[in-house]
């Protein structure tokens, strides 16, 4: 179980990694698309710290870099993957949204990952591994019916799935009021699933609540539905942002890095920040030096 400096460092690394990606994009060193985790770092770090990458499984979505970095620690593989370099996690085939390493998976079709994570939980339960299958989804993905099909099955079959909803109040350009009716936790409760709901950017609070959620799943082999209200500071993907800048600014006052950083003494924080820069610079340099993915690899 990580202590605050550690949690801060990981959040800081994700933040800077994502900012670096956006830079590389502007420089034309990346193509395709990317969805950054900037602003939501406390969720991924707070939840995944409770998981064991050797045993547990994570299925993530289009906004998966934060989850990936926290679960696998593999920044080099991810950066190479996004840059289309041969040492990328998936040899450049998957790119930003389609990652796989060890017990980590992601896919870019919203909602469709949820039944797969449910099936993973079923398999792990049958095998008796004790694994928790965690799936991350956004408020927008709650529009997809397979989510409810999965909640039903997870509840019926008492599967060890942790559903984590990161409600950042937008689906691409669409504010939540235009895409979601009723209550998020009630949607899981209706299927007889235990829920918890947090509206905070405080990684320690999230960490504590997530700890309870993961324990519940692990101990009872029952699903749990954790709703984390959050916000992203960066645009949906790389480009245009139609949100009110004042709204974003207001949210920035509750930046999870500020909240956690304020609890560290400034020397420690600066040392961490410096370490992060150093590590990141190394990763970027290595990735830039790595060979491009070669067409031969794409041939079956």
């Amino acid at each position: 179980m990580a202590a605050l400096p550690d949690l801060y460092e990981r959040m800081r690394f994700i933040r800077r990694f994502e900012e670096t990606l956006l830079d590389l994009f502007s420089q034309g060193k990346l193509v395709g698309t990317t969805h950054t985790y900037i602003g939501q770092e406390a969720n991924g770090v707070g939840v995944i710290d409770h998981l064991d990458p050797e045993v547990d499984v994570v299925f993530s979505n289009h906004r998966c870099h934060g989850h990936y970095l926290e679960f696998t620690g593999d920044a080099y593989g991810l950066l190479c993957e996004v840059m289309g370099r041969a040492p990328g996690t998936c040899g450049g085939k998957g790119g930003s949204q389609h990652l796989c390493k060890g017990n980590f998976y992601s896919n870019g079709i919203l909602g469709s990952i949820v039944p797969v994570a449910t099936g993973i939980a079923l398999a792990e339960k049958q095998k008796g591994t004790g694994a928790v299958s965690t799936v991350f989804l956004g408020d927008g993905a709650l529009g997809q019916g397979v989510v409810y099909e999965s909640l039903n099955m997870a509840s019926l079959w008492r599967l060890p799935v942790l559903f984590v909803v990161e409600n950042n109040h937008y689906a691409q350009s669409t504010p939540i009021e235009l895409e979601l009716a009723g209550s998020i936790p009630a949607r899981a409760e209706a299927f007889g699933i235990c829920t918890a709901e947090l509206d905070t950017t405080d990684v320690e609070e999230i960490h504590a609540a997530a700890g309870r959620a993961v324990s519940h799943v692990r101990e009872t082999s029952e699903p749990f539905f954790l709703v984390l209200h959050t916000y992203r500071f960066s645009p949906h993907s790389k480009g245009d942002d139609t949100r009110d800048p004042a709204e974003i600014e207001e949210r920035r006052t509750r930046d999870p890095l500020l909240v956690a950083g304020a609890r560290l003494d400034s020397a420690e924080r600066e040392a961490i920040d410096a370490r992060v820069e150093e590590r990141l610079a190394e990763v970027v340099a290595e990735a830039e030096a790595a060979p491009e993915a070669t067409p031969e690899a794409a041939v079956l």
Partner: protein
Amino acid sequence: MSATTQRRCVQVLNEALHELFATREDVVLLGEDVLDPYGGAFKVTQGLSDAYPDRVLTTPISEASLFGVAAGMALRGRRPILEIMFGDFIALGMDQIVNGIAKFREMYDDQVTVPLVVRTPMGGRRGYGPTHSQSLEKLLLGVPNVCVVAASECHDLGALLVHAVEDERPVFFIENKLMYGRPSRRPEDGHIGELAVREAGGEYPALTFSGNAFDDASATVVTYGGMLPVVLDAVTELILEHEIFCEVVALSQLLPLDLDPVLESVARTGALVTAEEGTLTAGVGAEIAARVSELAWSDLRRPVRRVAARDGIIPSARTLEDAMLPRVEDVIDVVLALEGVRS
């Protein structure tokens, strides 16, 4: 009739499932209404849940997710067999199939496999109407990295199913509603009934039938699944009524297509007719015709002709359904209409 030929196809499939469950701990089956005593809408899973209660799961009616659940299980080392009650419902799973099941292995750079089997019955002629009678395997042919196997009553159904479960690829195992009740008809002494038969190919072999011991024949008819008995009736009638001999190739593997047995037969006959129960456009016959026209250009004396259902819905009324689905006479007519057919 020997004991073998008397088993109905549903029984052969059921026994293969029992065998799989007995020999492999990792095999699980899920689907709607699969529990005993009901044993599935077409009774293929009978006895399985009584014998293996922990490995047979009856599910909610959630086809879209079921494909995903099976995929998740396969990713994690299980061998799920998903029964989809009617083949028409695979349309509900297309996203999971196209954007998940078919992609995981290759897009994750071969770090994973997705060894799942989807078993589902296709086909009409039972008056079930537009949403319960289709032959939708055609929708899967354009999906790279999956395997489509179409069982017929003359194939070793049990072996096909066992291979499908042991395959590392996702396999769509297409059954046929009328086939279930028919006797399994395996070659004996190289014959099925009056026709000589050769079996060739890998795990999902093709059968080639001849009415004159693979001597000169007028055309090859390539078919699969539930259309095979229709074609066999047609070629028998062509022999008896018109003294025209055709070879018949019954594929069991539709994707990836292995056309060697067809090409070999066409090298002998010089003409090809494709016959399938699904609707014509963009059917299995289209891909076969495109490939064979290219690969056997110099062997073909005439263009490949296709027999299929009319492009439209499959009506409920039997009179209308009969007129819509390809019949014995349709196969006969197309063969007879081949210019310069050898007789």
